[in-house]
Structures are given as C-alpha cells and as structure tokens.
C-alpha cells in the first residue's frame, strides 16, 4: 500500500511544478490551463442556468457518449461517474446533476487529440438525472441517466 501511495504522491508531485509554473505566470493562460473559472456556471442554482453559462444551445442526445453510473447509489456522497466521448474533436466534457443545489459539478477541457474520457466521483443530494455534456467542434451533445440515491431504513 505504501508503494501505491508513493506512486500516487510521485504522480501528484509531477503535476505541482506545472501548477506552480502557471501560478508564477511562467505559462501563458491558454497553454496548459486554457479554461478560465466558470463562476456563473458553478454558482448557478438551476440546471438551465448552468447550461447557459456553458453556452449550450441546441444540444443533441448522442449515442457516442457513454455515461456510466450506478442505477442505485447506496451512498450519495460518493457516486462514481464515468464519461467517454467517442465524438471526434471532443473539446470539453461537463457533468450536471440536475437536482443538486449547484447542478454543475465539473467541466473538463481536452487539448486537441486527447481522449474524451473522465472518471470521477460526484456527490448527489438526492435521486437525480446526471447529464454529461460534450462540446465537439463547437457543437453540444448530451447523455442523461437517472441515479437513485438510497433512502435509509433504520438509519444505517
């Protein structure tokens, strides 16, 4: 286990100099960190406002987005969500949890040629639709799945 952690720390360590370099202004915004913080999106309290902040218009459901979630999440605090976009030139993946107090959970930007793949854990306040929004060649595509969050019986 210590070995695994060491590898992990090493991996994290290799990222930190990059972040430090960016923080020190050594990298121009637009190089490694193209995205600016989407304040309006992450502060939005309704899914529609979050979508607006992303500039989503005319989004089409797509079978080329594979959204993997459990059907039933025993624990809403840690719901594993994986999004794979097979759409060519995927630029970004955003994940919205419709019923969360702040529906926009995250946005991931992909530099050209990167595989459109994200695996993360999300907090779900209650049973909700989870929506993956893929931006590719300036167009938007979506995939939606309902995740039921378990309601306890005896309390644990």
């Amino acid at each position: 286990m210590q070995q695994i952690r060491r590898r992990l720390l090493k991996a994290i360590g290799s990222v930190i100099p990059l972040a430090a370099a960016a923080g020190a202004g050594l990298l121009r915004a637009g190089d490694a960190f193209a995205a600016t913080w989407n304040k309006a999106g992450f502060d939005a309290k309704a899914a529609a406002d979050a979508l607006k902040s992303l500039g989503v218009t005319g989004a089409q459901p797509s079978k080329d987005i594979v959204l993997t979630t459990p059907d039933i999440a025993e624990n809403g605090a840690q719901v594993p969500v994986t999004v794979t976009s097979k759409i060519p030139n995927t630029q970004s993946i955003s994940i919205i949890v419709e019923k969360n107090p702040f529906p926009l959970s995250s946005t991931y930007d992909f530099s050209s040629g990167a595989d459109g793949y994200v695996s993360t854990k999300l907090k779900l306040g209650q049973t909700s639709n989870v929506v993956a929004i893929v931006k590719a060649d300036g167009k938007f595509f979506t995939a939606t799945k309902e995740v039921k969050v378990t309601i306890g019986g005896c309390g644990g």
Partner: protein
Amino acid sequence: MSAVPLAVGFLIASLGALCGSSFINPALSAQPATARSAAPLELEKPASARPWQRYKVDSQGSSWPQTQWNNFTNLANAGVSPPMHAAPAFSLPVEGDAERGRLLAYDRARGGSCVVCHIMGKTTPAQPGNVGPDLSTVGATRDDQFLFNYVYDPRIYNAKSIMPPWGAFGVYRLDEVRDIVAFLKTLKEPYAITDKNENPNTRPAPVESRDNLEPTENPAMFGLDSGREVFTRKGANGKSCAACHSAPEIAFKTWAARMPRYEPRLQRVLGVEEFITRHARATTADEMLMQSNDNVALSIYLHNLANGAGISPDLSSAGARAALANGQTLMKRKVGQLNMACVDCHTREQHANKWVRGQYLVESKGTTAHFPTWRTSRGDIWDIRKRFQWCNVSVRANELPPDAKQYGDIELALAALNKGEKINSPGIRH
C-alpha cells in the same frame, strides 16, 4: 537428583506454552499449537471508557441519536419493556385525520415510518421496503378494530410479527394511531410499481465491488499505516509491540481469524480490540482504550495481517461453548422501543434479503470478515463492537460499552456462523 528432570520438564513446558501462542518469535513456532499460552493481560480495569457515554458524532460529523431508552429491554437487561397488554378501549368506527395519518406513515423522523417495510398505495413515496406485506388494499380487506389493534400492537393477532408495537411502546400516541388507521382505511386499490429499481420485489441487491485495499478508494487504509506505526512505536515503558513480535507478518498470519476467543482468566470472550487494550497495558504499558484511534488502527493492522485466513473460532472449551450459546440466545432477544432482535432482520428464515426502504437487509453470514471497516455513509472506521452499538441504537435500545460481555458472546456467535469466511480487512461498506 530429581530436581534436574523437573527443571528440564518445566523448561519444555514453558517452551511449549510459548510456542503455542502464535505471536511469539516464529523461529520457535515449529511446535504444534496446542494449549494456548497465557498472553500477558491486564485483567482488572474496564477496557473502554467508564462511565460509558454514547458517541455524539462520528469522525466526519455524522451524529448519533442521544435519546436514552431506559424503559426498554436491551442486551444487558431483560424484561424491562412493557409486558403485552390489550389495547385500551376505543370506539368504533375508528375516526381520525387520514391526511395526518398519511404524513405520519411516511415520516422518517417518527419510528422509521410505515413505508420502511410496506408499499402503501398510489401515494407511496420513493423506495418503499418489503419486509411487511403490501398494504395497498388493506382498507378494503380489514376492519377498523383489526387495524387499530394491529397498529397498537401486532402481537395481539400475530405473536411472530416483527412489527414494532407502535402504540403499546409509545412510539405513537393513541390519537396518532387513530389517524394512521384512518389513512389505512383509504387504501383500497392495488398499486403496481413498474420501475424495477423502485419496486422492492424486483430491485437488485447491492453488490460491493469497490477495491477495499486501494487507499484512494478506502480511507481506512490510512488506519492500516497508522496501525503499523503504533505497532513499532515505543510504549510508555520504552518497549514496542515489535520488540517481542519481530516478524508480525508470519506471527499474525491467522491470529485475527481465530479471534474472538474465550479467555478463562476473564471468564468471557475477548475480541481483537479488547485484547489490544489489555495486552498493551501488560506489556508496553500503553493505554489504548477500545474505540481510541490507536486501538482501532492496531486492530486494522492485525486483521489485515490475517487477510485470506478463514475465520475459525476456538469452540473447544466449555466456557467458549457457553458463551456461544448465550450469544445465540441474545441474538433472539427483542430489544428497544422498536422491539427487534438481530435474527428478525438478519436471518433468511425471517427477513434478511429484503428491503427496509432503500436499504438491503443482509444475512448474518458474510458480515464480519471485513471489520474494522470504513463506512461511507458515516465517514468513519468502525470496529465490530461499534457496529453492534449502532444496531442497538437503531432499534432504540441503549447500547452497551464496547467491552461488554454480551457483545463478546454475540461476536463469538457471529464468528461461528462465519466460519471459513476469509478475513479481508479493512473493509469498505455503505
């Protein structure tokens, strides 16, 4: 002349005794493990805090109910709960406020609510349970008298019912029982739940597939690291565990799988955690009370060293067999304001493998080998005694201190039931 053989004999006996103990230098452990030696233990003091006080919150802030249920039976005190009695006189037809009754029936804050166990017609909220029968047509099939009595105390009609005596044990006042009956009387149409994940009769049982030994997945793995540190750290008298147990990977390969065990010096069952407290006091002079961080960490480390070993409690002594029998009896004792026994929900003869609301009731077999375990719903590492305490509190019975004899007996009974299950610790569960 006779003094020499005697001394040699004594030496052999001592060696045999030492080697019988699994946690002594492995170079000597080629001897068959026969009579277990007496590991040094402190035998006088309690192994957990006194007076015992219930946890306020778990480490990440999940709170514990603070109510005391002194008027109800628990695992230490039998015969405290009110005796069976007839419902007080009520007038027929039963009149009440059906809408208030519906809210009570669906209210999680009171008694757990009826939908925890029943489907209740078309207004049933999300994820009903199926421990009890579907009540969607109960208003068409049962009369007022039956409904009132049954909600007041189901045992009036059905001695084997596991439903709490809502009225008799004071979870609901009589006017609330009338309201609930008024609501039940409105239930007259069958209700089919078509969503298979919503219907408790078709909902798939949860499968635990997370990698419990992956530290990025299981926060209890950090407890393993700190347990290893506690093991090698010098205690109050300058000695560490490692000073005597130089090759723990070999010495403890199966040790935790053979716990808990009956300890004749205490005349009761010792689990890993209580053993740690008492053995540390007697050897390193460290004070590691049960439920302290050090104790739980060391328990994780010692269990983890036995990963893969099949649970095999020693039931050969009369003391162990008596403790086992008592543990099995305690698992059948109805406790708390909800009047429930372990076996009511966790044996397949009763209601295991059914749903209480969205929560799945597991069988007792298969539920011990992963302790101590990370509980994602609580954000805390629980040893098995803390799990017992939570079960007690959940059915509204006062919990016992973690080193209570009764918990030892139940832990032994569970170990017997889980014989052969492979230790896999630290676990991760909902």
